């Protein structure tokens, strides 16, 4: 016999708590990248000239396009949330799809950017890397590691949004209970935010 008490706990729901939890988790992600930004600043201070030359080799255009793509996707996911709050399920679903599409565009762009580097023999552990000057080498090490880790977060964010998409579709996220969509959107903003830091650090500051 199932007692009433069990179901009570499992249905326990506290939206404020979930949101606070998500914010705290986002802090930890920021700190994770914060560690990398710290390493970046230290090496940049040590090898300013090398970092300057190396950053010229990145294409600002591709970086800028990706920035716009991500900013746009942040907007669409925020709109999806608003749509959900206004009980417009169809619009919300569409906007989530657009967000996912933007994420895909970002990754394809990244793929070509990395591909070009690989093509020139520039990848971790390559013979060319070993010949570079110390600061150069560190710059590209950081470049691959930071953008790689960020791309990984994009993929995690996409998986999260896909789950959210299906939950909206089957109605388990609805206009009175949407904290999962809200948390998914928060996470997506985080991914966007990190890129907003990465872009100037890697592409713009010279």
């Amino acid at each position, binding site marked *: 016999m199932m007692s009433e008490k069990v179901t009570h706990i499992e249905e326990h729901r506290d939206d404020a708590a979930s949101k606070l939890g998500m914010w705290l988790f986002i*802090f930890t992600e920021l700190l994770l990248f914060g560690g990398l930004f710290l390493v970046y600043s230290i090496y940049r201070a040590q090898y300013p000239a090398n970092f300057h030359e190396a950053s010229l080799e990145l294409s600002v255009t591709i970086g800028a396009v990706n920035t716009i793509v991500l900013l746009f996707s942040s907007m669409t996911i925020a709109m999806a949330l608003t749509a959900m709050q206004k009980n417009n399920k169809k619009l919300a679903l569409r906007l989530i799809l657009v967000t996912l599409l933007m994420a895909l565009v970002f990754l394809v762009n990244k793929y070509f950017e990395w591909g070009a580097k690989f093509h020139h023999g520039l990848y971790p552990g390559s013979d060319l890397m070993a010949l570079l000057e110390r600061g150069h080498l560190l710059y590209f090490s950081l470049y*691959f590691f930071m953008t790689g880790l960020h791309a990984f977060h994009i993929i995690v964010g996409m998986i999260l949004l896909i789950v959210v998409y299906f939950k909206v579709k089957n109605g388990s996220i609805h206009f009175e209970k949407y904290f999962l969509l809200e948390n998914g959107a928060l996470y997506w903003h985080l991914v966007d935010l990190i890129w907003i830091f990465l872009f100037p650090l890697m592409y713009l500051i010279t």
Partner: protein
Amino acid sequence: MSNEVNKIEYVSYLEHQGRFKGLKSWIFATDHKRIALLYMYAIAAFFFIGALLGLLMRFELIAPGETIMKAQTYNGLFTVHGVIMIFMVVIPGLSAVFGNFFLPILIGAKDVAFPRLNLFSWWIFVFGSVLAVASQFLKSGPPDTGWTFYAPYSTTTGTSVIIATTAAFILGFSSILTGLNFLVTVHQMRAPGMKFFNMPLFPWAIYATAWIQLLATPIVGITLLMLIAERLFGIGFFDPNLGGDPVLFQHLFWIYSHPAVYIMILPAMGVITEIVPTFCQRKVYGYKAIALSSLAIAGVGFLVWGHHMYTSGMSENARWFFSLLTFIVAVPSAIKVFNWISTMYKGSIDLKPPFLFALAFIFLFIIGGTTGLILGSVATNIQVHDTSFIVAHFHYIIFGGMGFAFFAAIHYWLPKMYGRLYNFRRANIACIIMFIGFNTLYFPQFVIGIQGMPRRYFDYLPQFQTGHMISTIGGVILIFGLFYMLINLIKGARKGPKAPANPWNGSTLEWQIPSPPSLENFDEPFEVKANPYDYK
């Protein structure tokens, strides 16, 4: 099915029938109390494995030269021992076991904020632990870097470093999620009427710890990821051959690992702060000072990591500054010791086992803490750096501190957790044996450390033999005491006499509910006191 769904009959959480039966009702439990026990069983198993490895090292050190193992085996042993003890025993230890069990109860909540996340953390913990243990048995041999994984050795040695660091990363993730869960629990789940300053002090300690877990662990996470990337793809961060800087690794590592020692010791202080007032039947002295000193330790603890690196190549200014901060962080710890002792003053002291363990804790912690000051001052540190003085110091803090606090906690709360009592006389005897064993084991290491016995060496000059021999004898006594205590506890938990709801005449919330508690802890209305320790 009856219709009276509102009438709740008392069923203890141990007997409660949920969705699953048998083993599954445990490993898929979302009840914070069951998860606490799951953690306890896993951690206890690792602790005994770790302790036996420690004892093996002690046997190797009983005489100079190769005694029972080769040098490389010894390297593997101190690494495994360190990794198990640090990442799998003392970091999760008190908060995952007693934090899980008693944090919700002490603040009048039915469970933690995210019960399923809690279960998930346990599974991640088990997965990480399995990886860590597995790294010992892989073809390339056990990692031999020490638990600190210093680069560039860790980026070049042929042993299974990747698996071990991945394990540490995963364990860190589990720690973050537990911390996050507890933070939200404290903020959102306190019973109506319970303000922050009405909380007992164990929740305060867990709360401060959770902040450290959340804020410090990502740093070691990224550091370990960088190390793994360096080994896998040759991305150079730390190895000078790849352009990197090994000292940077040490900085990043200690930015986490110094705060991590507070992850270990803060909950221990919290436990002692619960036990002392109960067994003196006195209001805790300086409630606010204790609560806030937890936060102060958590805060200042972030700024002292450099004291591990006085000899690694830091500027003179950095060294004196880190030294100054280290002395400052000792102040809140000392405040707590004074508070405990003042609480005892004029109390009606009842020397039951939990209190005896708490006294042992205070004694050992004072030795560990004051030798910490010797290490915090630059001049003396350079003398004893990387000698067995260090080994003695951190065992006094983490084993004498966190370890004995764990024993105190289990003796204090076992009647509540299992609803049974253990044999008090045997528990006292176990405490005394362990106390003697402990000091015999580690005190000589202070002496030979000052004389120059290096740490992490499997061989030594003949002049250190007496010290090592005494130390090994102490190790045997200690292990004997450990098993003696364990057997007494297991017997008590399984067949001991039934415990009343409030065996110690305690005043905090856990003693207002039946032993063992029911699934939702509070079936009946309960009283939230303005001062949780309102004796007399």
